[in-house]
């Protein structure tokens, strides 16, 4: 079997080349749901990063004790526990944000990104590599969320994170903060990423 990627490689891969949202198309539910504003998007990224890091470390610690057919059960249990903790911590210390994010925090449990990383990386490699992988993927996820949220909030309300950026004369494109705007923004940004990737490959080859 080929050599598994090193920590540094895992980290760098996670940010752009194997970006969980733009390249792997995983974890799309929160991507569309919480990106109507910059603050919810950032909070969600941090929450996912926390859960992914803890889950990866935990799974990596017990990877040699676990038989293959029990692993999904253990992954799920681990992730569900950490998501419960994150959810409660958010409700205790950031209550208004917790209400804004609503049911999308518990939905981190079924976020394909985390289970995928546990399966692909954490269950096979050391704690350091698993952590690097988690951090890289979270960074990539955060980058994707922030990119979509910036476009949606800026065009939809003229503000970024609540701070007015565009002049008040800007006719707010309300559709941007509504569900159709999420789909359209993400679709167009995805096309942009695909185009940039193809252009880069074209230049190389």
């Amino acid at each position, binding site marked *: *079997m080929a050599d*598994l990627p090193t920590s540094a490689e895992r980290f760098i891969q996670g940010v752009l080349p194997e970006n969980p949202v733009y390249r792997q198309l995983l974890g799309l539910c929160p991507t569309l749901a919480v990106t109507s504003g910059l603050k919810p998007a950032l909070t969600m990224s941090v929450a996912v990063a926390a859960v992914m890091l803890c889950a990866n470390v935990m799974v990596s610690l*017990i990877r*040699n*004790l*676990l*038989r293959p057919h*029990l692993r999904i*059960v*253990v992954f799920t*249990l*681990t992730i569900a*526990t950490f998501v*419960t*903790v994150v959810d*409660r*911590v958010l*409700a*205790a*210390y950031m*209550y208004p944000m917790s209400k804004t994010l609503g049911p999308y925090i518990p939905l981190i449990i079924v976020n394909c990104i985390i289970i995928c990383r546990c399966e692909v990386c954490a*269950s*096979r*490699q*050391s704690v350091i590599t698993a952590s690097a992988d988690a951090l890289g993927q979270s960074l990539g996820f955060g980058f994707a969320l922030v990119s979509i949220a910036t476009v949606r909030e800026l065009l*939809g*309300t003229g503000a970024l994170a609540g701070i007015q950026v565009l002049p008040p004369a800007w006719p*707010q494109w*309300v559709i941007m*903060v*509504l569900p159709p705007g999420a789909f359209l923004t993400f679709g167009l940004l995805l096309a942009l990423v695909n185009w940039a990737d193809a252009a880069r490959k074209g230049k190389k080859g």
Partner: protein
Amino acid sequence: MENGTPRRPGGGLKNSSLGQAWLVLLLALVFGAVLAAVQTNLSRIIAANKMNETLDNVPALVWGAGATGRMAEPGRAVAITAGTLDVTVDSKLKVIPVFQVTLDGALAGWVVKAGGQGYADKIELLLGLDPALDTITGLFVLEQKETPGLGNKITEAGWRRQFSGQKTHSPLVVQKGRIAASGGIDAIAGATISSRSVTHIVNQAVSAARANLTTDAFRPLERQ
């Protein structure tokens, strides 16, 4: 084997079903302990957050926007008691959250939590009433999911101020166009249904309060 790392001493554990069962059990216990710790430490804070979200808005609803000054006056004791009121609507028993506000022991006003269907989803409001239940003293929108930019404007202070000072002897009516008659609420341009929903919820809450709310009928929540 999956990778090239040398086999850990836990190899025996990996190969026995009993070992696996013990592992899952141990994990469950560890996670259970973590969750129990989170529950004991944070549940009180979360419950307080929920309560404070409403309590923070109560003084302004009774005394208007300058209420914080009132609260800080030396020698004045403001007390807010959370409680419930039993109301029978359409032969169904409803329990309405009510807050009793007293200043130096004398009743200063009531705040009633009311809810109902808006344009998009449920709207929840806090409605301030004077002690005689004669006048509306304030309105605050707790929860709404109306259209951003249109129905959303029911949360704006300017629009909500229309309700302050309105008399409660007859239901409020929504009017389109700038007719600021007493008993009339100016609708938000482009959000007539949201405006009507809020007014309807207010009217219902007012009539329920006028018919049922007395100091005796008010049941304070038990302190824990």
